[in-house]
């Protein structure tokens, strides 16, 4: 890879690209991220330090507290909120990708829920963008969000049967599944 042109704005905040311009897929955001996270989470959280972005698994009960603390320490941007279905392990994992508008630090929170009766507190009062994202997760995964202001189906019909993004959803009319490998 040739390297004759130096980048013209090396000092962009949040830049973690080397001179060759290739982004290094390692730690996300500003250098102060790790200490900050230690401060917020303490030692009790299941912390997966090797992953990018840093992924922390927390317990459902501590979600609101964690979220509030994150929001207060500058994580003002809930990038996305979604769920992953693991039928074999009997769990639905809720994923919160959280970042901020200034340094673009990234981290993800994951919360494991019981697949049969998934229920968790809403964070829509902490990040309002969670409102629609939670509705979407409710719509597609049947995860109930406690205290959500308006938990209705968002993408599907109000009288739709089933929750399509669950792995065991069967719909021979609308869903043509072609399996590979």
């Amino acid at each position, binding site marked *: 890879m*040739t390297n004759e042109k130096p980048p013209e704005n090396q000092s962009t905040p949040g830049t973690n690209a080397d001179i060759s311009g290739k982004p290094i*897929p390692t730690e996300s955001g500003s250098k102060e991220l790790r200490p900050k996270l230690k401060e917020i989470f303490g030692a009790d959280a299941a912390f997966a330090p090797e992953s990018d972005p840093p992924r922390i698994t927390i317990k459902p009960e501590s979600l609101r507290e964690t979220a509030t603390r994150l929001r207060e320490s500058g994580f003002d941007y809930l990038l996305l909120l979604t769920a992953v279905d693991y039928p074999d392990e009997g769990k639905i994992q809720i994923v919160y990708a959280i970042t901020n*508008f200034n340094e673009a630090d*990234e981290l993800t929170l994951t919360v494991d829920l019981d697949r049969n009766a998934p229920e968790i507190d809403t964070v829509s009062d902490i990040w309002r*963008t969670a409102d629609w994202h939670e509705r979407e997760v409710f719509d597609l995964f049947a995860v109930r969000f406690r205290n959500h202001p308006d938990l209705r189906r968002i993408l599907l019909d109000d009288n739709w049967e089933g929750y399509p993004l669950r792995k065991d959803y069967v719909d021979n009319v609308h869903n043509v599944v072609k399996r590979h490998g």
Partner: protein
Amino acid sequence: MSNIPADTSIEPDFEDYYVNMGPQHPSTHGVLRLIVKLAGETVLGVTPHIGFVHRGIEKMAEALTAQQFFPLTSRLDYLSAHMNNWAWAMAIEKAAGIEVPERAEYIRIIMSELSRISSHQLWWGVFGMDLGAFTPFLYGFRDRERVNDIFEKTCGVRLTMNYICAGGVREDVDRDFEKDVREFTDYFEPMIDEYDRLLSGNIIIQERTKGVGVLDPETAKQYGCTGPTLRAGGVDYDVRKNRPYGLYPRMDFKTAVATEGDSWARYVVRLEEMRQSLKIIRQALDQIPAEGPVRAKTPMNIKIPDGHYLSRVEAARGEFALYLVGNGKILPQRVKLRSPGFSNLSALPETVKGWRIADLVTIMSTFDLVMPDIDR
């Protein structure tokens, strides 16, 4: 009160009444349904109903290999097809540890910026039409044709390009590519000034947009708005700057930021973005290595290792993020597409409250919604 159920009949009280705007309405640009609560002409509240073009792309992703999923990413926000392809490619490259050749990185930048320009051209035309001026619509399309021609020459497709792929781009650009793009940049730069003369300088446009539908930066951040919608409020946030990807760190450009947060600011930001995109394209053309591979060797079926991967790109409408959960097989466990329009639209009810029905159209137009992107 703002969230009334969809199909119960409402007993209107004396002054307020409800009206369906969409799904078949000229200004919703696609199949978006807004239940608008009105008092005379004044909008008291808006409840968006989405999902009319929900195709279950996330579900489909779970049954498709990495390579097979590319065409579907083009069909999200069809106006930012390159950027969406890029996001998926980036997630795969991150997961499988694929290095992208330098020439391919440059091609990706040029294509993305071209498609940002073409998206904004279309938006500009449609914006004029929403405000009752039909002529800009065709001016926008006239210039957009040129971008589409460039795409067609290289990708063989004009809209859903499906050109960027894991490990680079599908194949090398057309041999006239550089000439064509340079011609286009030289043609289009003065054309933005013509846009200014035709529409921006018009007193009616200014009356209709200035101070209308102010989305203050704090609210915008709360709703996770991105792109011009956010930057119009003075938040200097651009994924290309804040989380640079590809070779964007080598490019010298400014993020277009306004301060007022009104419809006019969103308009100005988009026009400025087109100028900045031209600047980026010119730099990329200067820097691109003349020869070299454009695609790294990748296996036919890429195994996605166990783990979570996040890729973020700046699409024409804001931040497009893609969350990939792998499980060591070739089919992903889960793909989440975070579309900019989804969050932008969720801020619409807050923004239009108290404005007139004509302003609702203006505000919606400056939010620049693309429904297939929102519904996925």
